[in-house]
């Protein structure tokens, strides 16, 4: 009973909130800008323009999804606590878990619906506006990538929610959540590159000989291995892996397309991470919140 009431109210609040409208506006702006760019560089001349469109779209998704998670997670509990509304809600015949579950499900439904809607609308624009060819395989790949974006958003929502459960002030939880995102999206790639350089050393000089090329390949392999192992900490990496794997094969002209099933097998570990991480964080938030006492 209480869970459904919270879910309904949260969905309505989220949909009508300024932050959601602003995020949608940013999303559209980025999308249109990317689309315009593709058109100006000559979209019709590209062999499979859908791939370029999806690449552009995915880079926006990779940016928007974490922001969406943080925007709705940072004050989910601390905001209610700060406003004093949590006290009013908990004074009613409702269990604490209904509050957190209602909020979580509302976020998931809103994010999934809006990201899927955005994906299909953008594909529709592509077909209607440019008469581009679109196969079922393309739609399936786009859908899977969108699912990864929803999960990425959930990862950041669960991080923000955990901070929100602990914090008395929304500003604290917002700062912590944004700090995590900056570390994952900006600091970590820089650190990973620096560490990879320090371990792999400077790249060997390409002399044009076979031995030189082999040495460079060896160095490059080592460098990428180190960098990728560090980047595994970041959830953004897994979304990137899903998007790149699903789009890589079909983007290279003349190269045989890897089947969707094979692509799915190779992205399964990334999906596992994108599912398990938020699950653990959400269980932690849930357990802590349910045991907390509002003094």
């Amino acid at each position, binding site marked *: *009973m*209480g869970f459904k*009431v*919270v879910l*309904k*109210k949260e969905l309505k*609040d989220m949909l009508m909130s300024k932050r959601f409208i602003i995020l949608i506006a940013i999303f559209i702006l980025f999308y249109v800008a990317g689309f315009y760019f593709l058109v100006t560089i000559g979209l019709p001349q590209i062999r499979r323009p859908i791939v370029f469109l999806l690449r552009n779209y995915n880079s926006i998704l990779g940016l928007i999804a974490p922001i969406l998670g943080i925007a709705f997670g940072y004050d989910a509990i601390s905001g209610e606590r700060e*406003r*004093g*509304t949590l*006290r*009013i*809600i*908990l*004074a*009613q*015949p*409702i*269990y604490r878990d209904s509050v957190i579950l209602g909020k979580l499900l509302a976020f998931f439904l809103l994010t999934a619906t809006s990201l899927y809607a955005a994906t299909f609308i953008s594909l529709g624009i592509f077909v209607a506006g440019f008469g581009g060819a679109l196969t079922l395989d393309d739609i399936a790949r786009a859908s899977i990538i969108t699912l990864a974006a929803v999960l990425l958003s959930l990862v950041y929502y669960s991080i923000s929610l955990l901070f929100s459960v602990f914090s008395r002030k929304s500003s604290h939880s917002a700062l912590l959540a944004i700090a995590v995102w900056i570390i994952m999206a900006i600091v970590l790639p820089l650190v990973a590159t620096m560490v990879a350089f320090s371990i792999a050393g400077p790249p060997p000089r390409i002399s044009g000989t076979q031995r030189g090329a082999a040495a460079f390949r060896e160095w490059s392999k080592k460098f990428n291995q180190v960098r990728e192992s560090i980047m595994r900490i970041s959830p953004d990496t897994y979304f990137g892996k899903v998007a790149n794997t699903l789009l890589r094969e079909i983007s290279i002209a003349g190269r045989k397309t890897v089947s969707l099933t094979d692509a799915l097998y190779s992205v399964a570990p990334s999906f596992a991470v994108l599912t398990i991480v938020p699950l653990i964080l959400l269980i932690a938030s849930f357990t802590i919140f349910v045991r907390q*006492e*509002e*003094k």
Partner: protein
Amino acid sequence: MELVIETKNLTKIYEKKVVAVDGVNLKVPKGAIAGLIGHNGAGKTTLISMLTGLILPTKGSGKVLGYDIIKESLEIRKRVGLLPEGFGFYDHLTAYQNLKYIAELNGIDRKEADKRIVEVLKTVGLEKHKDSKVKGFSRGMKQRLGIAQALLKDPQLLILDEPTVGIDPEGAIGFRILMRKLVEEGRTVILSTHLLHELGDICDYIIVMKQGKLLAQGYVKDLQREYEEKKGYVYEIRVRKGAEKLYQEVKELGEAVLKDNVITVKCSRDTVEDLNSVFKKTEGVVLEEFKVVKPSLENLFLYYYYER
């Protein structure tokens, strides 16, 4: 005496060291307006939170409206209207929308909710602001809306934690009238406050807390009697003629003060007969009024808080 609240050795210890409520054996009779009084940090809010199942006691047990505070807290919250300390509303929603949400959380169906919302808004004098956003409400209006949400479930017991904070004097008078009306309707009301003057004379039952401990509880008249037995009775004699003469006689019987033709004398109950004799034998004295001054809530609080 039918009790709506009864606790046994109720104790709350935070983080294994801070004793917020210490072995409280509380009894609140049905139909009372009970004042839960004590300084900040006396444990009032923690006690209320335990009674309504918002926090679990470390030790002890209790029943509210016959329901166990640990096992049946949801049943308690269905029947108890609570105005928690430091509460708030959704500023972007109207008074009606806020109350609608509360009604939904209580499982009240839409038709009934609409009817009750109008009723409670009228009760607290906010009917004209039904469709105004809470963002524009004054502190007093928010406080009244808080009481409205507590009344929405038509509760048998109403617990209001610091209900008059931020209310202007006019609002405070309206609040007292409302409380009396609610009790006339057969409800029991508990008012928790650290501001004694805010309670005025509306309470007929008081609960005094200090550092987590229950110092006193009982009907005001019983506690007043106990106070008078221990501290003496206070009589007030308004004299039209011969005040000074009478004062000289009366001060032999007890602690007396003469001011503006009014003699205030503090003495034991038995002295009332001696006073009568003095009135009779003192010539040239015209009495206007003679009354017993009952100890105020403040007198009682100070006595139980510091002296007993």
